[in-house]
């Protein structure tokens, strides 16, 4: 469960990125976060993920207030949250396989288990033939799928995705959304930030719309 209470975020100097944001995402929910570019979607996901600190307000994840988190608690939180970054954030000197295996290496799974899980998620995303490639030698869409694979391989309880279909063609977009619905059906909370309104229309899920750092609309 994700709870936000009166959350503010000011980056240095500029006008506030987020102003007085409050909402609750229940465990197992599927939520879209939308709004025009610069509305604050990415910032909001970063706050939940503790890669930015709120200027004000409280963010509570699975009952724990993140404002008191130290580096260890943040690391623990990130092990159970899958984050799909808009710019992928893949390690360029490691193969796709190694990149996807990294979260499991960090948690400390057994090698056999890691192999099984990574192979499964790679083939699920149609990437098995790219397993031994370095990220920069595959296409943007493939990189995006690799970053999705890395977020999913640890079977996260919460999945945060920042424009996850930005580099995918419509067919792939559909199959990735199927995938998200699938893992949501298995109990994972899913929050997707996207400015693609056609995507939102198709799925008819709860949608929170931001503009200029404020929630301007909430649709169940």
């Amino acid at each position: 469960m994700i709870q936000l209470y009166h959350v503010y975020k000011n980056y240095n100097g500029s006008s506030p990125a987020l102003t007085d944001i409050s909402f609750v995402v229940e465990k197992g929910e599927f939520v879209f976060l939308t709004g025009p570019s610069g509305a604050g979607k990415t910032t909001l996901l970063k706050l939940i993920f503790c890669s930015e600190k709120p200027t004000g307000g409280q963010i509570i994840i699975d009952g724990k207030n993140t404002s008191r988190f130290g580096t260890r608690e943040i690391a623990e939180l990130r092990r159970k949250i899958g984050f799909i970054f808009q710019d992928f954030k893949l390690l360029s000197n490691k193969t796709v396989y190694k990149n996807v295996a990294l979260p499991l290496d960090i948690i400390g799974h057994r090698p056999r288990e890691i192999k099984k899980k990574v192979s499964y998620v790679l083939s699920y995303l149609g990437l098995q033939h790219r397993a031994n490639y370095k990220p920069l030698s595959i296409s943007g869409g493939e990189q995006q799928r690799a970053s999705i694979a890395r977020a999913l391989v640890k079977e996260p309880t919460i999945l945060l995705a920042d424009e996850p279909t930005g580099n995918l063609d419509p067919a792939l977009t559909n199959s990735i959304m199927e995938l998200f619905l699938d893992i949501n059906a298995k109990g994972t909370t899913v929050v997707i930030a996207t400015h693609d309104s056609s995507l939102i229309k198709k799925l008819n899920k709860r949608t929170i719309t931001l503009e200029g750092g404020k929630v301007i609309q909430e649709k169940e």
Partner: protein
Amino acid sequence: MTISLLIRRILFFVKEASHNIKGNLFTNMVAIFTISLALTILTSFAVFFINMEDMLDTFGADVQVIVYLKEDIRSDSTSPMKEKIRSFTEVDSINYVSKEMAIQVFKNELKGQKGILDELGANPLPSSFEIGLKKPFRNSDGVRTIVAKLKVLEGIDDIHYGQEWVDRFTAFLSFFKAAGLIIGVFLLISTIFIISNTIRLTVYARKEEIDIMRLVGATESFIKTPFFIEGLFEGLAGAILAFIMFNAVRYMLLKNIPASFSSLINIPFPVTDFMIILLGIGTAMGVFGSFISLTRFLKQG
């Protein structure tokens, strides 16, 4: 943490470190070479310093106090006096020189000038004690203490100890030790500084990677451990290279300098000890260098 997880972790870290070393081969070579140069200089200095100090210590053995006895001293009082002086904590050795021995030495030194001696008539030389001091007292202070103790003894005419020479020698020795300590500490700090800066290059080269590791939930120790292993490896490799370089330079010097100087480049320990010390210092510095660069350049992001 279970044993099997611990083993998996260690394997992972070692693999990670070796992967990083291969991936940044050039930077790592530069680091190893820099470390080896710094360690060679440090080692050369230490060896030179230790040998020089030993040499100076042998000069110190020349610090001697001579007690001249009164002309009218009773011959049966010299023996208890000798024992008394021997019991002083500062005294290492004591030697009695009788009037007869003194004149004999004098005669030997003046061979060929017998005339002078004949004119002297009766033996004018006093009997004496030659007193050698223990190592810690072969300096101005030590000499002053023993002289004060000797002065109050009965039957003593005069005390000689080359005051000026002892004072100068003492001053030089303390200057030498202080200079050695300062240079040594300076070299040690610069070596660590060089190592930490070289390792910083490898940390910088992987800044992005480190940020990404954090984002996928790696703890600080998980991120840092491979760097420590890398630093350890660099220190170790640098020390091995330094050992080779030092011995090569030493070998070349031995062939080209006069034999009387060769004691200055003696290795003051058994070779295996020397090797172990050098490797120990190298690895410790490598790990410490990584520690410094990680804490200084790997701020929370």
